[in-house]
């Protein structure tokens, strides 16, 4: 089967986020909170349309990477802004950078 040419593929964006809170969280807690917030705001169809994915989270630095298409980046940002708490503790996600490749995103997480 012939693959899509790059011009027809969706352009991806990688969001580097940092958790601002007075305590540290584990990867699973962060992942669950983000998914819960996004599904309640955008719904499963909205997330599918945005091709959303949780890529990675570093528990030491409390920074992580999310992926979505460049068309839906504002929706994802807005939905993440509506996240009030993680694991029942007050916290919020601060989007530090938006990159076009996962390599650059990883450099910002370290």
């Amino acid at each position, binding site marked *: 089967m012939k693959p899509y040419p790059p011009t027809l593929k969706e352009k991806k964006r990688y969001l580097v986020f940092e958790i*601002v*809170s007075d305590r540290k969280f584990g990867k699973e807690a962060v992942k669950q909170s983000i998914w819960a917030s996004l599904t*309640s705001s955008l719904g499963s169809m909205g997330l599918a349309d945005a091709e959303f994915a949780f890529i990675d989270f570093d528990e030491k630095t409390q920074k992580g990477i999310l992926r979505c298409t460049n068309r839906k980046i*504002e*929706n994802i*940002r*807005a*939905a*993440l*802004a*509506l996240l*009030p708490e993680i694991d029942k503790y*007050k*916290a*919020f996600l*601060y*989007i530090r950078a938006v990159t076009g490749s996962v390599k650059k995103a990883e450099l910002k997480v370290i």
Partner: protein
Amino acid sequence: MREFYDALVFDKECVAFGKTLGYKKVFFDEIAYCEPRAERDIKITRGKINFVRGGELSLNQAIVRKKGVDVLLDPIGQRKEFDTAVGQIAKDHNIAIAISLRSIIDARASQRPKLLANVRSLIGICKKMKNDIIIVSGAKDIYGMRAPNDLAAIGSLFGLSEAQSLWAVSENPRALLEGLP
């Protein structure tokens, strides 16, 4: 480079924390906040930016008719509490319409869809009547604050264009600050 402002916070800690998030200024000492239940409760403080929280349609009408009000905050509820008449009076009296992130976050999960629909309708009316729109965090502590681009993203979720959303967190709050004596 664009300068961002968070026009309403309720904690002094947020002022310093706002700078780390990328705001040029976070309004705390400059504002006078009032949450009236009826028309007689509306209090105006001279020399400050007067934020008055809206509510029912009749209260919103009273607020935009009151002299000295600078910003009508969250004229939203479970019903549509803001119409073109209120928008026109607000425009005539140079009153901005503000939406706070806290009111959306604090809403119960069952009420949030209705609230978001009403905010979308409010923004539609404000765009039609050419009202100044401001997006504020309304944070009670630093965890209620959000980065300027995230606040702007909320605007675009409600039907504002990207430029209008950025304007709502930069130029419109700055105009309030410039209006101070």
